[in-house]
């Protein structure tokens, strides 16, 4: 499982090495790492519904890893964007991050995701107690922001955004169906 989550990265590295990223490899690399970040975020959010619904208890042990992979791909996404598209020009970094709403939203999502990754260590988790659960509920905000980040870039076709949006909506709906209070008492151990 751990290794299979590295497959997208391995595939990207293979494509870089074999010069198979097309005519605009910088753009391609930024885009695909972003998409993989999004996919791992969706997978992370799918763990709880699947565990409760299908009684797949074993899935729970992978939730932290999936979340960390989301952060991992999001980090590469942000790093390649700054390196390959903005080329570390501070003026451009400043103006792009502040003046382009879809980029501001993406950066905000990343900044909110970062503390979730940091606090995922077991010792910190234990020390934080109840507050850990409260903090990690911000993953829902991260997911919404990440979706807005994607949606805002749509130019000619909504299909991809609709697919991601529908999955996210159903993941949210499943949680609502269980009625919030009861659900959280059961799930947040």
């Amino acid at each position, binding site marked *: 499982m751990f290794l299979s989550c590295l497959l997208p990265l391995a595939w990207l590295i293979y494509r870089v090495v074999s010069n198979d990223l*097309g*005519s*605009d490899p*910088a753009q391609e690399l930024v885009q695909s790492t972003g998409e993989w970040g999004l996919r791992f975020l969706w997978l992370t959010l799918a763990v709880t519904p699947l565990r409760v619904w299908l009684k797949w208890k074993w899935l729970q042990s992978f939730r932290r890893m999936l979340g960390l992979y989301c952060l991992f791909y999001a980090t590469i996404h942000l790093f390649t964007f700054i390196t*390959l598209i903005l080329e570390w020009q501070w003026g*451009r970094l400043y103006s792009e991050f502040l003046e382009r709403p879809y980029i501001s939203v993406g950066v905000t999502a990343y900044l909110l995701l970062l503390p979730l990754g940091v606090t995922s260590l077991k010792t910190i988790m234990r020390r934080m107690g109840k507050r850990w659960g409260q903090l990690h509920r911000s993953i829902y905000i991260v997911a919404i922001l990440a979706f807005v980040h994607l949606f805002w870039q749509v130019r*000619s*076709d909504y299909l991809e955004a*609709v697919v991601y949006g529908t999955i996210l909506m159903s993941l949210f709906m499943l949680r609502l169906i269980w009625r919030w209070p009861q659900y959280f008492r059961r799930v947040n151990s």
Partner: protein
Amino acid sequence: MLIRQSPDILSSEITSESTYLNRRSFIGKTVSLATMVSLAGLNSALAVAGYNYPIKEGVPTYTGPQWLEKKIVDLTDSGFSSSEELTPYLDVIRYNNFYEFGPDKNHPARRAQEFISDPWSLEIAGEAEKTGVFHLEDIVNPYGLEDRIYRLRCVEAWSMVVPWVGFPLAELLKRFKPTSKAKYVEFTTLVDKSQMPGQASSFSTIDWPYVEALSIDEAMHPLTLLAVGLYGRMLPPQNGAPLRLVVPWKYGFKSIKSIVKIRFTEHQPKNTWQLIAPREYGFYANVNPGVDHPRWSQKIERRLPNTLFDRNTRETQMFNGYGEQVASLYAGMDLTKWF
């Protein structure tokens, strides 16, 4: 300014292949001269044989109907050139925005290969003395085809340098005698869901057909080209076969592909992207580093192809570097308002 090929060229007049292949160094030396004479270069019809761009084996090339192939062989060098390195043929034919075939850059190359561009007819309509539906051969035949190297700047901040094969749009438009009411020229792309899967998508933001337009002055400008080919060969379907527009000082989306209709109008038509997002795309769409797209900067561009180690980024030039020729068209206009 019609350029006709003399029917019997002496073999001594034909540029030898080695000389032709060395044209870059020649162009490099004469580039300052070329910019001085700029448009006068149109008249220096230097004979070059077609198919002179070497293309690697295994990379697909395309052949058109016989009448067109014959014309392409008689390609003339228009004098419109660039000292910049050409974007390789493979990148030109595999990295395309042609939403009729899908939203991704590789969709056109993947999905357009079966596209039927022969026979093809073009409708001329609107404010002109002569209108009607014409076979492509009748449209193209009166004109000699030219080899013109233009920069292409996409609104998405990437750019290419492409050797087109075509003839000035002005020559064609004059033939149909536009009336005094003809203030704009509108172009329409084919609609055919069976051949163009992008048009069948229910999630597309585009209301087909794709429509573009120019003011009559822009359409009559000697730089404005109707292309039937690139790299000395027939236009590939993913690049807009059999007939497309090339307006090098405007963002690429103005250069409409697979044209089926040209209409002279009195009022300014609404072009497709302006209809989708009027805040982001205007009618003029002149390349302008001073006016950012609301979602990204237009100050710089990535020249394709690039590598991860050298993104080949450069500063975008006003009117894509064709200001000397076209800036006068917009004298006195506030280009931040009329973007």
